[in-house]
């Protein structure tokens, strides 16, 4: 992959080296951050040697705290040698990483848009270790950034300054799957694909599926309340997660691991950890409700001439396919272009302004195929579908899903992605895309939209070659204002992270925000867990210290 970018990047790196001079005051900045900043300054020559490694891109990524000069580092301690020695007594030498090169990947998010300067990575294996570490950090006022697979798209999984990164990657034990109830118990660091395989061998399937399944971990998925591709049928994680074990910032272990579906005893505490993006606790164990693997899976990949046709198709699908419909995904022409150009997958059908992937899942192959086929026949007669293909062969099903699942990756290869995850009522669902296209014109490479039409969730992706602050100014807050005005949500499933948190007031009322802030202050009075995320910066002004 390094070779692909070599020619373009080399010239940019050399330019960077000359341009990068820190005008930001370094007064009061921790050593770790300064070292990072200094290295970026020398990226011209240092970066050139690094072209031949897969991490070469990191030299062109700006440190988050530099990009957000209004953000001040909180009143946390800095990591000292004494702290490292303590961590090593808990985790052993292998569990504490301080090597700069190794830390690069953990300091940078998947989109390569956010970069922190943490100098320590901790890798606990058990809940007890997490508890001891958090208790210590709380005492010492050390900030911690919990991290799972680091596939989050809003910069919530990487540090902003020098927060200690606590990775759940080594907490990957699968406990068991109850064959009667379908409840799966496992540690938070299990990779989704591994869990999929585990339950698949026992004829069960997970209620959640994401394009990032090869890397994302269940703890992170739960912490961000990820939506994914199966939400239209199985609902959100708030319903499918029936147990959670988490560690509070003060080290207390809160065990809400349940193996029974119904439990109305007191407050449903696990819901606090689902979707709070690691700001209220570190999730260490999860109990997930799984469903029996369907014996019949059929996928249709179709072309629609207009967005109205997509909506009509969805409405029709809901009625005619009802109980067997399990996914309804859409992508536009620009997304398909990116997929063909950047990840060399071919368009399964002819060119069209809109593409839809429909999946049906049931217990009788022939019945489902007939239902889907007759539905599509009618749709084609009515011209809401103009072309398409369908198959139940597992190989073809996977290939067709691949085309949809690799959309994010394909757009990433354009250079820099400004990604927005909006929930919109169906009438307004796609309109933001042409609006942004007009607004940005030739300043951007591509303006693409794809997403879970079934849940009203659009992923708006705008790409440029490099990060351009002018483009950001044109996009934000316009896109958020537009969404709110049209009755939508500014973050359907990706969460707030650091990218969306300035706009929390657009999404929630002042009383709601106050209640959230009060809860946070109650559970994390020193604000050590994943600071700077979810809440707008002014809330993080630490005036209570």
């Amino acid at each position, binding site marked *: 992959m390094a070779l692909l970018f070599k020619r373009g990047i080399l010239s940019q790196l050399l330019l960077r080296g000359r341009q990068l001079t820190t005008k930001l005051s370094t007064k009061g900045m921790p050593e770790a951050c300064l070292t990072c900043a200094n290295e970026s300054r020398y990226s011209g020559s240092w970066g050139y040697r690094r072209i031949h490694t897969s991490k070469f891109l990191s030299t062109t990524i700006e440190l988050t705290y530099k990009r957000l000069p209004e953000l001040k580092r909180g009143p946390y301690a800095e990591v000292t040698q004494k702290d490292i020695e303590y961590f090593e007594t808990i985790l052993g030498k292998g569990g504490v990483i301080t090597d700069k090169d190794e830390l690069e990947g953990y300091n940078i998010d998947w989109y390569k848009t956010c970069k922190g300067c943490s100098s320590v990575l901790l890798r606990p294996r058990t809940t007890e270790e997490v508890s001891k570490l958090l208790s210590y950090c709380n005492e010492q006022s050390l900030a911690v950034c919990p991290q799972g697979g680091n596939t989050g798209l809003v910069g919530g999984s990487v540090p902003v300054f020098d927060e200690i990164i606590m990775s759940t990657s080594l907490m990957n034990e699968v406990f068991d799957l109850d064959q009667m109830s379908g409840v799966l118990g496992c540690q938070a660091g299990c990779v989704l694909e591994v869990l999929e395989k585990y339950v698949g061998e026992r004829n069960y399937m997970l209620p959640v599926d994401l394009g990032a399944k090869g890397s994302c971990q269940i703890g992170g998925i739960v912490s961000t309340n990820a939506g994914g591709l199966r939400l239209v049928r199985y609902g959100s994680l708030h319903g499918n997660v029936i147990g959670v074990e988490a560690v509070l910032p003060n080290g207390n272990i809160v065990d809400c691991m349940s193996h029974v579906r119904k439990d109305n005893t007191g407050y449903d505490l696990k819901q606090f950890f689902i979707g709070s993006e690691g700001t209220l606790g570190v999730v260490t164990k999860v109990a997930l409700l799984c469903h029996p693997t369907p*014996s019949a899976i059929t996928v*249709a*990949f*179709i072309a629609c001439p207009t967005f109205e046709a997509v909506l009509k198709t969805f409405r029709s699908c809901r009625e005619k396919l009802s109980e067997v419909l399990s996914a309804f995904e859409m992508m536009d022409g620009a997304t398909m272009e990116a997929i063909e150009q950047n990840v060399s997958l*071919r368009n*399964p*059908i002819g060119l069209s302004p809109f593409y839809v992937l429909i999946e049906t899942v049931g217990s009788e192959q022939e019945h489902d195929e007939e239902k889907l*086929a007759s539905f*599509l*026949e009618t749709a*084609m007669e009515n011209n809401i*579908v103009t*072309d*398409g*293909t*369908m*198959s*139940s*062969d*597992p*190989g*073809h*099903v*996977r290939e*067709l899903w691949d085309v949809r699942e690799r959309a994010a990756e394909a757009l990433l290869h354009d250079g820099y992605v400004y990604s927005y995850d909006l929930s919109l009522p169906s009438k307004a669902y796609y309109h933001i895309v042409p609006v942004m296209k007009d607004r940005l014109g030739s300043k951007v490479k591509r303006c693409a939209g794809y997403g879970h039409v079934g849940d009203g969730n659009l992923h708006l992706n705008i790409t440029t070659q490099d990060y351009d602050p002018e483009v950001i100014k044109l996009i934000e807050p316009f896109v958020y204002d537009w969404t709110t005005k049209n009755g939508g949500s500014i973050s359907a499933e990706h969460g707030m992270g650091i990218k969306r948190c300035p706009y929390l007031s657009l999404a929630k009322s002042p009383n709601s925000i106050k209640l959230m802030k009060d809860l946070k202050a109650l559970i994390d009075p020193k604000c050590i867990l994943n600071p700077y995320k979810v809440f707008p910066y002014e809330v993080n002004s630490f005036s209570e210290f």
Partner: protein
Amino acid sequence: MAMRVLVGCKRVIDYAVKIRVKPDKTGVVTEGVKHSLNPFDEIAVEEAVRLKEKKLASEVIAVSCGPPPCQETLRTALAMGVDRGIHVEIGGKDYETLQPIHVSKILAKLAQEEKVDLIILGKQAIDDDANQTAQMTAAVLDWPQGVFASKIEKMDGTLKIQREVDGGVEYVEAKLPAVISSDLRLNEPRYATLPNIMKAKKKQIAKKSISDLGVDITPRVEVLTVEDPPVREAGAKVESVEELLTKLKDLGRI
């Protein structure tokens, strides 16, 4: 003059499905497992349909040997553009012991009956990886063969076939009628479009039995056991070169 083309369509366990060995070690689990058209046969079908689109072929006939579900496999081929199908019904024990030697005789017989000019088969099936049927069929018919084909060009009364061989690429010219086996890079098969999937339901699939064709399918090969490959053992980490050498010596490797 346009050719009449025959393509072989074998029904195999789908490539995306995980294979499990039967506990009695007599074979792999096929009951309730998803099957589909052998990927190399899909490439063969695609090539035949392209020849028809270029008007180099006048009719394309797909053949599948096996139990009734083979008709679904034929429907996939029909949906891709094949004109009609022939299902040679073979079930039970006979099907379990069916080998390339038998299939090649069946295909040869059908090719003669249908007066076919070109047979395109997949180079191998992904279940047995035999890579024998195309070669045997050509031998039975005494026709020239171009196997592992990555490109086919129609010349005057002959075919120029580009073959992928160990040393690189080889060109062979074969007089018609001929047998070809498709390799991976011959083409990228199309996804059947919805209108064609609908049309395929109405296309004809003729049924034939083994006795109709007069082919002897007595097994010549007996499968003794089918076992999983040995489980991969965990590796061991060593701290130094000296330790590595000691370990290798202990294992008798050096």
